[in-house]
């Protein structure tokens, strides 16, 4: 990815395609986020009166099954994209193979905890009212 953005002449950059699975996932989730984050921002901050939903409005909004699917998808996609970005920065430290493996494991655990927390939060909000 760095090569695509460096000061190399365009012809040289074009000869260096990036094919790693992580980069591809980063790109796919990034494109998905343009749609999902836009929807999230519009629904929660631009459409909502006063720029932020009150408690009753949040509960009402989350009771729509389609919204639940979109919000959970948003949570999974944004977490994946964020942690792949963190991975890229950490790997720039020139980690050993073992350290890279451990970093990946730690990021997987963090990702699972993040999504798990988000799911718990959603479930708790829906059930609370």
């Amino acid at each position, binding site marked *: *990815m*760095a090569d*695509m*953005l*460096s*000061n190399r002449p*365009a*012809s040289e*950059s*074009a000869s260096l*395609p*990036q094919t790693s699975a992580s*980069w591809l996932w980063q*790109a796919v989730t*990034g*494109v998905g*986020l*343009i749609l999902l*984050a836009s929807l999230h*921002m519009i629904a929660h*901050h*631009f459409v909502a*009166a*006063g*720029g*932020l*939903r*009150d*408690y*009753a409005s*949040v509960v009402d909004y989350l009771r729509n099954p389609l919204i639940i699917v979109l919000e959970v998808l948003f949570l999974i996609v*944004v*977490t994946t994209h*964020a942690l792949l*970005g*963190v991975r890229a*920065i950490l790997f*720039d*430290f*020139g980690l050993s193979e073992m350290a890279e493996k451990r970093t990946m494991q730690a990021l997987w655990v963090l990702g699972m905890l*993040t999504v798990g*927390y*988000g799911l718990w*939060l959603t479930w*708790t*909000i829906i059930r*609370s009212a």
Partner: protein
Amino acid sequence: MATLHDSKLKRAAQWADVRGRGLGMWAYALNRLTGLGLVVYLYLHLVVLSQLTKGPSAWDGFVALARTRLFLTLDVVLLAGLLIHGLNGLRVTLNGFGLGVRSQKTLFIALMAVAAIALIVGAVMIYGK
């Protein structure tokens, strides 16, 4: 050992040093900086959302705080980060798939102009609520 450690740190931080570098490196650094900011925001956002589990008074109290001028300004900063990272990331993705590689600098300038316009519109909407 210290030298090895220092060189790894230097290598890892190389992307952030844009002194004397071209527009491509600025774009790359900007993408990473906004990405890191958004990762921090993601986790802060998840922590704040825990207020929803404490019932209407806790959440609505936070909403009142979030409608203050300071928080609205932070919303504008968030929107700037999302627009810059999202549109710059879209360019990186297109370039990664071999699209627009030769005109990547023009594309970067054009997308940042779009981001600036969208930010102005968004800021007007945020402060106008």
